[in-house]
């Protein structure tokens, strides 16, 4: 039986379609990071896919930005409760990056400059569901928002969209990344409100 908060509800936000349970709408772009923002010079940037057998495929910044890109618009949902609707990005689809990668793995670990990691099942990265994004709102992605490039897996809570990405590792079994080891959910579906372990 829910506890009713006497006198609450008078200042509620407009109800918005597209908002998962427990979320509220923001028009800002809040930032959430575990540590300082790394500054990565483009000539030191690379992105490497490593398969379960150890085979590596890498792109430098010029190679990566020469790949076919997509401009797209999507909603993003942060586990800290804010959602931002209709954000516009440019990025390379994971379908493009993984087209020639041979793997039988079901899981991946996303790696970032600075040591951040997050786990995502491989199927959640494929079929037009995920990108490595490098432009936001028509501008180069700012470092505090994950620039030069960040993962974007918008159908999961936003911590899965790792900032400052530099690699993707295929895994046979699911393993927790950084926030997942600190008590957050292994999968993180905002529509099922999978915020924390056990949700």
């Amino acid at each position: 039986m829910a506890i009713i908060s006497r006198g609450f509800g008078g200042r509620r936000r407009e109800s918005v379609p597209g908002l998962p349970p427990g979320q509220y709408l923001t028009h800002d772009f809040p930032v959430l990071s575990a540590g300082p923002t790394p500054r990565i010079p483009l000539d030191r940037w690379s992105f490497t896919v490593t398969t379960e057998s150890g085979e590596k495929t890498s792109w430098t910044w010029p190679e990566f930005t020469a790949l076919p890109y997509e401009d797209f618009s999507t909603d993003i949902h942060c586990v800290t409760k804010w959602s931002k609707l209709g954000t516009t990005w440019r990025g390379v689809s994971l379908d493009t990056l993984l087209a020639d990668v041979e793997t039988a793995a079901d899981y991946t670990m996303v790696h970032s400059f600075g040591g951040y990691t997050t786990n995502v099942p491989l199927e959640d990265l494929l079929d037009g569901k995920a990108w490595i994004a490098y432009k936001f709102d028509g501008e180069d992605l700012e470092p505090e928002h994950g620039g030069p490039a960040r993962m974007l897996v918008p159908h999961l809570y936003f911590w899965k969209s790792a900032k400052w990405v530099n690699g993707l590792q295929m895994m046979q079994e699911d393993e927790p990344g950084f926030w997942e080891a600190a008590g957050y959910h292994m999968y993180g579906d905002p529509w099922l409100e999978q915020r924390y372990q056990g949700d």
Partner: protein
Amino acid sequence: MARAALPGRLTWRAATLAEARPETPTARTLVFDVPDWPGHLPGQHVDVRLTAPDGYRAQRSYSIASAWPPGGGGPPGGGGKVELTVQRLDDGEVSPYLTDVLEVGDQIELRGPVGGWFVWRETQQNPVLLVGGGSGVVPLMAMVRSRGQSRAKQPFRLIYSVRSQGDLLYREELPRHVRDDPGFDLFLNYTRQAPDGWPSPPKRIDVATINTHGWPPDFTPDVYVCGPTTFVETAADILVALGHDPKRIRTERFGGTS
């Protein structure tokens, strides 16, 4: 990275407001009775859920301000207390309810504790530097209280940046920690208006502030920075530029919890 032990599901718990104290004209400390509270580490937060009479709900996250177990020689068995300090955001829907409407005896729902990264554990032996901006001092206060209560010996420094004296949270308690907790230093930085006779003019925190009032990087302090995004970005950049290991700098940003 070591795997954390799997905690059980975080369930919503009834929390009854036991006590409320104004901190500033726009911030209020709320002490909740949560009978089955499992305890927490300083730095962790809780999710708060409010339900309107017609079933409409809203959730927000708030840092815990209190240490665990609650100290100060309280009565045994009075252990289920969780203290939050809430800053009112005028256009918010949850914070004004918590600061202006909620009365002692009223109930809300709360779940947690949440977060296993921005925490200080007494087993950490390094000196500690806390850098807080505005209401970002709240989780740092939990660390200061926790250290004081357990009489821990790790040297602590708190750099606390606020607009003016009127915006200072824990205005009476912080000097008590300076007086009573050996090895705890406090530096107050005013950004808009300093009190009369304050030795330095108001300014935002800068390299000199952190260099003078923090620990040298050689001491390998564990650093905790919390505040609004621009404050955290500035402080963390300065710390890295001064030579602190980025891996020892933990940050928590307030995107504005309304």
